[in-house]
């Protein structure tokens, strides 16, 4: 795999998160019954960043949660390498909340389908919305994001890497090409 280009730097990523925070507050008329759920792995720090941004803007600490979708993957019985399962930690009643799901990259939509199944097994949220840092296209299911940091048309041989300070030591979005 070789490096092609930097798509967003730390400053641009921060600005994208600020815009998404504004859009979420605008659409939901505030933050009173919101909750943010990050999908393992990079959705979790994104949810934390967004909660912090919303707290700065609105003065409300929105609850956050962690969701692992491994057990809901539609290819789990067919894959050749066993994925590590992480803990799902949602310590609030999701039935009383509008949930915003967070992930780093939206691609085929299969992760989000699994996340919707996993979330609805935990309760019946008032609504579920989706926020992603990058939408790279190539959907295989009728799923779209409500909030997007960067729309990035890609080819299937390209790889989008969202790196975050919490998980990768730096904030940057990069485009790579598979060999």
């Amino acid at each position: 795999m070789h490096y092609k280009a930097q798509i967003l730097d730390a400053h641009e990523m921060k600005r994208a998160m600020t815009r998404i925070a504004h859009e979420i507050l605008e659409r939901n008329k505030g933050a009173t019954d919101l909750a943010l759920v990050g999908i393992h792995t990079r959705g979790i720090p994104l949810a934390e960043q967004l909660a912090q941004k919303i707290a700065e803007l609105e003065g409300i600490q929105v609850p956050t949660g962690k969701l692992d979708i491994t057990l809901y993957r539609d290819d789990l019985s067919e894959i050749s390498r066993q994925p590590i399962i992480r803990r799902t930690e949602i310590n609030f009643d999701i039935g009383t909340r509008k949930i915003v799901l967070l992930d780093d990259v939206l691609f085929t939509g299969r992760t989000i389908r699994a996340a919707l199944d996993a979330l609805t097994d935990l309760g019946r949220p008032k609504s579920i919305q989706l926020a992603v840092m990058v939408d790279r296209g190539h959907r295989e299911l009728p799923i779209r994001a409500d909030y997007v940091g960067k729309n990035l048309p890609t080819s299937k041989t390209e790889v989008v890497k969202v790196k975050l300070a919490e998980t990768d030591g730096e904030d940057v979005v990069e485009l790579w090409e598979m060999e």
Partner: protein
Amino acid sequence: MGNGVKHLLDFQGWTVEAIEGILETADVMKEVLERPVKKVPALQGITVCTAFFENSTRTRTSFELAARRMSADVLTFAAGASSLSKGESLRDTIETLNAYKVDAFIVRHHASGAAHQVARFSGKSTINAGDGRRAHPTQALLDAYTMLKEFGKLEGLKVTIIGDILHSRVARSNAELLSLMGAQVTLCGPATLLPRELARDNVKVTTDIQEAVTGADVVMALRLQQERMNGGFLPSMSEYALTYQVNESLLERAKDHAIVLHPGPMNRDLEISGSLADSARSRIIAQVEYGQAVRMSVLYHLLVGKK
């Protein structure tokens, strides 16, 4: 994370890392069991056969529920209602069941080594749910998980197992697993029920119950297998209870935080006092509860990502 292991027959060939992986995933499964919908689609399309040639309540129900919680289809075979009584062999029974496109066998049998044979006959992933006196690995895993939940680690724990060690596959599997994980195991029972050859690194064998319990973190009482007691192993049941019963006064020698385990089914007031089994020190119900999460984890590790 795949550990490359297809079967769970005993712990031979298993690494500390692979066992830690199962115990960590059991935590995730425990969380699944606390949800409103206690079911995930992870094993959709997979058929699991519980082939029980010997009676069992908790192991069979626990495995079946674990498989169903993971969305597997479950084929239940119970020897009592089968053609075994007409003379069918183990091999023919397994090959018949295998013809129903089973992906995994969970086997209990009164003969030591039967689970190995099933693995060979079927060619499918096989889990030993207890074979003769030899092994009961998922019981040992759920016991280890119960200790882990209580103490946060296994390394350095002093675990004393008391009773009919000779006939106990639970004692053998626990000694195997816990010593591998760095716990100090003491096996204790009357001389006639205590095979000395089980002694090795981290596993001590003694008839002295007072010494065995002194300073223990975990005290496990084993069921006195009265159906196997026709060989003159014990003078009488009441004498056994007098000398080897796990009760409150014995527990005074253990650490203050010591917990009591029993793999079930219990003979109350024989190998364990009923009051201790019901006390705050008892984790016997927790063992049953954790057993389901541990078995879900075992199914995940053996059946997912191996194609």
